């Protein structure tokens, strides 16, 4: 084959000498560029757990609204609409766009759906569409059809531009036929970072967090009957709306604790496992940051077991008084309202310092069947109550049963129907908080 190509080339008219000298160099440079250069719009290296940002040196993003399928842990497949990176695969939710406060942001929307759609950016002032102020749209009879300028169906596009507002967490979502299109999955997150302080949630110094421990929880729900109706081009009686699946980042438990970009979830790239270590003033002084967003139509009373969280901002506004006084507060329950965003800092402290020698805790071994079927204090029991303890004397017949003596805490919606997969527990809006020993967990 190579010989054929060479022979064919030899019949062509010779290239000019200058081109003959530079062509090989150009090809080598092109190969190197393909291998090492990132795309103009790219995401940071994918962590196995934690926030995955879509970034752009020019703060320009290109999104395509399209249909595709997601899977649920009970084996169902659901037709969704979502915003995905143009030229990329379908994904739910839309990519998390990360920009700096004050940046000029451009979002080009391409519409592959059979009806008009749009993007609204709550919390971002003076959004332009096609260079003009974004405007609501009405039909011929004057009824409002869209909260903002749309992209025409089947290939239309429009470009939104705005200056990123105050640091914080924001939704971006469809502003057109909102009840239907948001339920179908047309939403994503916009993270605005304080300029020059990527390790702070906002301009306040006390919003400092560990950038390696940043998490985002996009909470949503799905009524599969509504989605089936849209897939088949039928109408749907929204008074019959009944959500059956409840999701964090487009996944339900146990998919929530699968890695980011797990092979078996090709259209649901974002996991929601929190993976941290105990607070230590010298070796682990910074908190984890968790960004909650509600893209659904009801409140999701989210409760992390084992540690309350410090609410530091809501809807892009820091929890502070008029004089800048700190008004953040500790929360047992992060009750995120529809359309709202809540940011919390989480610090897990080993308060009791249980130790098998100096501070033992009596442990009654539960029956095996209790451990299997739960729920109760025995769920997640690992045979050893001591964080990071994998050796030493254990009760007769008992061995260490987890990776490195780590703890697991459940975090889930306290509206327990929302912690099911179509009624089957455990599932839905549930994930885990994994706490490793202070020295970390050695690589296997």
């Amino acid at each position: 084959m190579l010989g054929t190509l060479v022979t064919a080339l030899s019949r062509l008219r010779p290239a000019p000498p200058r081109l003959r000298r530079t062509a090989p160099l150009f090809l080598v440079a092109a190969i190197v560029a393909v291998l090492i250069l990132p795309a103009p719009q790219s995401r940071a290296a994918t962590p196995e757990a934690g926030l995955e940002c879509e970034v752009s040196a020019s703060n320009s993003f290109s999104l395509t609204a399209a249909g595709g399928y997601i899977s649920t842990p009970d084996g169902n497949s659901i037709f969704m609409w979502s915003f995905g990176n143009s030229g990329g695969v379908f994904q739910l939710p839309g990519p998390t766009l990360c920009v700096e406060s004050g940046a000029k942001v451009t979002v080009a929307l391409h519409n592959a759906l059979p009806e008009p759609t749009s993007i609204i950016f709550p919390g971002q002032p003076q959004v332009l569409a096609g260079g003009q102020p974004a405007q609501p749209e009405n039909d011929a009879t004057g009824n409002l059809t869209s909260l903002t300028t749309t992209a025409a169906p089947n290939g239309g596009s429009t470009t939104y531009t705005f200056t990123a507002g105050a640091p914080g967490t924001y939704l971006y979502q469809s502003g057109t036929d909102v009840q239907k299109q948001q339920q179908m999955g047309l939403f994503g997150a916009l993270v605005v970072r304080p300029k020059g302080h990527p390790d702070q949630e906002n301009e306040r110094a006390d919003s400092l967090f560990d950038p390696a421990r940043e998490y985002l929880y996009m909470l949503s729900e799905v009524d599969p009957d509504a989605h089936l109706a849209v897939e088949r081009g039928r109408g749907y009686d929204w008074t019959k709306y009944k959500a059956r699946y409840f999701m964090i980042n487009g996944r339900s438990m146990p998919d929530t604790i699968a890695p980011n970009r797990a092979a078996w979830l090709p259209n649901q790239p974002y996991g929601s496992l929190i993976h941290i270590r105990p607070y230590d003033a010298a070796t682990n002084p910074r908190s984890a940051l968790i960004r909650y967003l509600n893209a659904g139509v009801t409140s999701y009373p989210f409760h992390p077991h084992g540690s309350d969280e410090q609410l530091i901002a809501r809807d892009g506004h820091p929890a502070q008084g008029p004089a800048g006084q700190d008004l953040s507060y500790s929360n047992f329950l992060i009750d995120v309202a529809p359309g709202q965003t809540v940011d919390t800092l989480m610090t897990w402290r080993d308060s009791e310092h249980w130790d098998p020698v100096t501070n033992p805790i009596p442990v009654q071994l539960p029956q095996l069947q209790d451990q299997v079927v739960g729920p109760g204090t025995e769920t997640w029991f690992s045979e050893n109550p001591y964080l990071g303890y994998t050796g030493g004397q254990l009760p007769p017949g008992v061995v260490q049963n987890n990776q490195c003596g780590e703890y697991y805490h459940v975090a889930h919606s306290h509206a327990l129907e929302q912690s099911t997969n179509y009624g089957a527990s455990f599932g839905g809006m549930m994930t885990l908080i994994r706490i490793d020993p202070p020295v970390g967990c050695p690589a296997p």
Partner: protein
Amino acid sequence: MNLSIRRGPMLYRTTVVLLTLLFAAAVIGRLATGASARDPYRVPQDGQMESTLGVRFTQAALVGDDGLVEISYVVLDTQRASRFQNDVQHPPVLRNERTGKTAWRAALMKQGHELRPGQTYYILYLNNQNAIKRGDKLEIGTTARKLAHVPVR
């Protein structure tokens, strides 16, 4: 790199063709790193086991940053599957075929008695001392039979 001058036109053309092919391979390789390029995942099936237990195992995966092993199964026969699920004294044991290590402590599995045929359920195991690693193959041992060569993803 001035091949046309030193070594003649044939070497030059061959080099250009090779570099062009390399360029094409680099582009294809870059594009192929997406989700669509992954290998198909298959779990062996055992009709006798499925007939006895009323379930078909469909996946073994490491989750929880490798601290947990997820075993998924689809219910084929509600009555038999109920017996399988409620035999809490004998949850399946996962044996790593490469190392012989086992994961046997179930951390979480379905509650309640309602099992729907065709629906997928799961059991989470504690991955004790890294018994199971991604890319390994498992033997899922039940009271009825053993299902070998289940790949871990």
